[in-house]
């Protein structure tokens, strides 16, 4: 599968995503530039983590106006696979390609840690190699990962099965203590209504080697590869 990883000014984990895809998984992956509208025929677009435009105003707010985002929106409407990680998730929400919004962690401080996550829906392209209820461990590192939405929207997101991952404790329960940032319903990852656009706060690209914090992230990427059409 051919992947494209976008570099916005201030993207930080773009190189790490490319490293994971190319060096660890042996996939074909190219770097996309924010000012270039073309997507060069990629089959999955990755919006990486980082601080695009310094997170000024709101996280993701300024990046969403990049020229490349026009094409990403079109690509998503046509059913293309789009994966937003951390800052990428924030950009996708700002661009209204995903519901809800991400605001500052309830502690108001940045958190870098490893967390347990429970798979909530295993029949999406991002999660198809998992079973519902699987508990995985991924790193998080963000200052604004608190997922919010209006009550109605949240109810819809839940009802349609758009919640993909929830923060849980070691026993797999979505408790308040296991919620690192205060996200509503412990939500860590969601999909759009048509299940081709995904946003997650944890960083799968930082969990692809046993030496560096485990391999649970690999399985998420491989799920998307399995989706290869």
């Amino acid at each position, binding site marked *: 599968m051919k992947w494209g990883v976008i570099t916005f000014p201030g993207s930080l984990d773009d190189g790490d995503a490319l490293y994971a895809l190319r060096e660890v998984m042996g996939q074909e992956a190219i770097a996309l530039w924010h000012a270039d509208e073309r997507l060069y025929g990629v089959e999955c677009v990755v919006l990486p*983590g980082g*601080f695009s435009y*310094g997170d000024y105003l709101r996280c993701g707010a300024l990046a969403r106006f990049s020229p490349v985002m026009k094409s990403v929106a079109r690509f998503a409407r046509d059913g293309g696979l789009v994966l937003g990680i951390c800052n990428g998730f924030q950009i996708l929400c700002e661009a209204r390609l995903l519901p809800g919004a991400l605001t500052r962690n309830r502690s108001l*401080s*940045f958190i*870098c840690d490893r967390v347990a996550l429970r798979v909530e829906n295993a029949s999406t392209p991002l999660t198809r190699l998992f079973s519902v209820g699987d508990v995985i461990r991924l790193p998080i590192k963000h200052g604004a990962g608190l997922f919010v939405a209006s009550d109605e929207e949240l109810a819809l997101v839940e009802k349609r099965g758009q919640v993909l991952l929830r923060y849980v404790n070691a026993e797999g329960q979505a408790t308040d203590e296991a919620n690192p940032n205060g996200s509503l319903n412990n939500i860590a990852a969601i999909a759009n209504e048509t299940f081709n656009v995904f946003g997650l706060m944890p960083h799968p690209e930082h969990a692809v080697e046993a030496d560096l914090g485990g391999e649970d992230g690999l399985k998420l990427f491989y799920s998307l590869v399995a989706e290869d059409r």
Partner: protein
Amino acid sequence: MSDTIPIALPSDPPVTVELARALGLTENEYRVIEARLGRRPTYTELGVFSVMWSEHCSYKSSKLHLRQLPHSGRAVVRGPGENAGAIEIGDGWLAVFKIESHNHPSYVEPYQGAATGVGGIIRDILAMGARPIATLNSLKFGDFDYPRMTYLVRGVVGGIGGYGNCVGVPTVGGEASFSKEYNKNILVNVFCLGLARKGELMSASAKSVGSAVIYAGSATGRDGIHGASLLASAEFDSAEKSKRPSVQVGDPFMGKILIEACLEAFATGAVEACQDMGAAGLTSSSSELAARGGLGIELDLDKVPLREPALTPYEILLSESQERMLLLVCPGREGEVLSVFRKWDLPACVVGRIVAENRWRAFYRGALVADIPVNALTVDAPVYNRPVKARPVARDYSHSSTLCKSRGELEHGEVLRVLIGSPNVASKRWIYRQFDYLVQSNTLVEPGGDAAVLRIKGTQRALAIAVDSNFRLCARDPYIGAVAAVCEAALNVACVGATPVGITDCLNYGSPERPEVMWEFARSVEGIRDAALALEIPVVSGNVSFYNETDGQPIPPTPTIAVVGVLNERAHRLSSYFKRADDAVALVKGGKLRLAATAYEALLEQKRSGVSFGWVLPPIEPELVKATVDALSEAAALGIVSSAHDVSEGGIGVALVECCFNPNGVLGVEVSLDGLDELGVGEALFAEGTPLVIVSLPEANLERAAKVFTDRGLEFKTLGKVKNEPKLTVKDLIDEDCNALWEVYHRALPRRLGEHV
């Protein structure tokens, strides 16, 4: 042009000795300036001299002493005097690193002060043509009860994360201590390491006449004028506000773009030399670039991008606005470089030229406003041999009669719990949880270990980095304290299995005009020298921060040492925590156990306010530390030990507890300290020492391992065994639940900061 005399501007105040003094120059220095110029300086020139001759830029009080430090070695590619040191680490890679202080700004405005400290050191590394891959920090705070301290702690930690996280350079480790001596003068030292390909280091000296001087990055504002120079070169008076410059605000987003754009610009091959605009901004970067190449420079101040209109030449030259770099570009290739910056949407323009004549000249609105011999600003700046006056230091080491004073009153388990719950010993997770230590995908050993370990992609190698200082020892004896800081940092690097290859030091002291402080400084430098020589590690870069005093109270001498080490096989790295149950636990020991200047002593003194125990410092033998370092890397390479952890604050007991905190599940340990009999057994539990290392290993390897250590003249003493059950048992002394200790250890800091975690 060279015989025109620079003009004064209508807005310039008259130049007098008083004005010179107000800018931090002495009357004598002012006279020397007049003599060098053969005339009275203009206001602009006076400003330029005042920053270039400040302690911060000229190292005038420290230079003579620093010359003693060993800075050569087979692997050293660049030593002191450059923007950072560089060491060859194999596979065609160079490690480029340096540590720097940002103490005063962080006290005035902790968030921005710490943030700009991170930004500044990152650009020092960048200027060498290296990609910054990690930062570490060393923080000294005061007592939590001191009024502004929680605010300072939160601000500094927030600022380091705020900048580091956003600029994409992982913060992989550091240290933090809390002691009342730093109440009014906290220390924020930041270390940065970058990687460069061999042969691709950027130069910091002008090469050819006619090269273009390109200014890149943020526009110049009024911020930080006389920031580093005056603020970092004069003591602090809490009542006096006038010396406080307008605070510098960092823009990490700009910092990140600047990294990418500069590296891309360097790759064109058109850039001959580069320097960041740090302390004394445009003035120091331009004059130092010219001086190193034995050339001159002409600057057109009208071309400098300004944030606000109507900045005077004085302000433009002295501004310390952040995120700015100065590049020298081969004549005719300016366009290539400028187009890279355009791609990144970053302001950049030509602001001057390199000239043959050894002059530093600035033009403003077409007129010459400064014309100074380059060397007068740099190599010929004043150097002082300041008077020193020794403080008495107790020299006789004996530990006989005093020991019993502490016995019988405190229960050992209780002492241990108090120690691991004290801010200096407790886990610093509250701090590093706020730092991105993962970005760039190299972090093999995360914060919380003895040293950070980073892989070098595409090779089997890894780098290990540790920063250390020991304020308690330094306050007692600046020589032993400095030796200890070097030894402890080297041991921390060795504990992950790496071989130390380079040192960078950040020397924090009070006013050099006090003979006692100057003595502390001189003794510390001797300590670093002796330890570095014995350990055979060159000192390749460093930084001096004087005038760390407020209301006449200097801080204790505080040399912060960072050691970088290399692991040839990253698979050989050791963890600091026990790996598995049934492994044997042993203590590697060289030299004497020590109770003086330990966390335990501080605790006892606190409990019986004012009582001094009269415990005296034993000497440290760096040769034994060298032996330990060598033995550890050999043992790691042979694969015969599972973990290694050096004993530091809190002593053997605390180190054993820390070893039990395996992140995959807390383990336990059962040991006996019988036979560590130079002290009464009770105190051995809390004794510190250098070198002292706890190792764990499969029992089958005990004999081979013992040989590796004892062959080098070290004691190797089997203490007991790792247990699956999370209990810490020390024969006759301790019986504690490790999970409960884990809670105490990890919740102490957040609790002090008023958080319910």
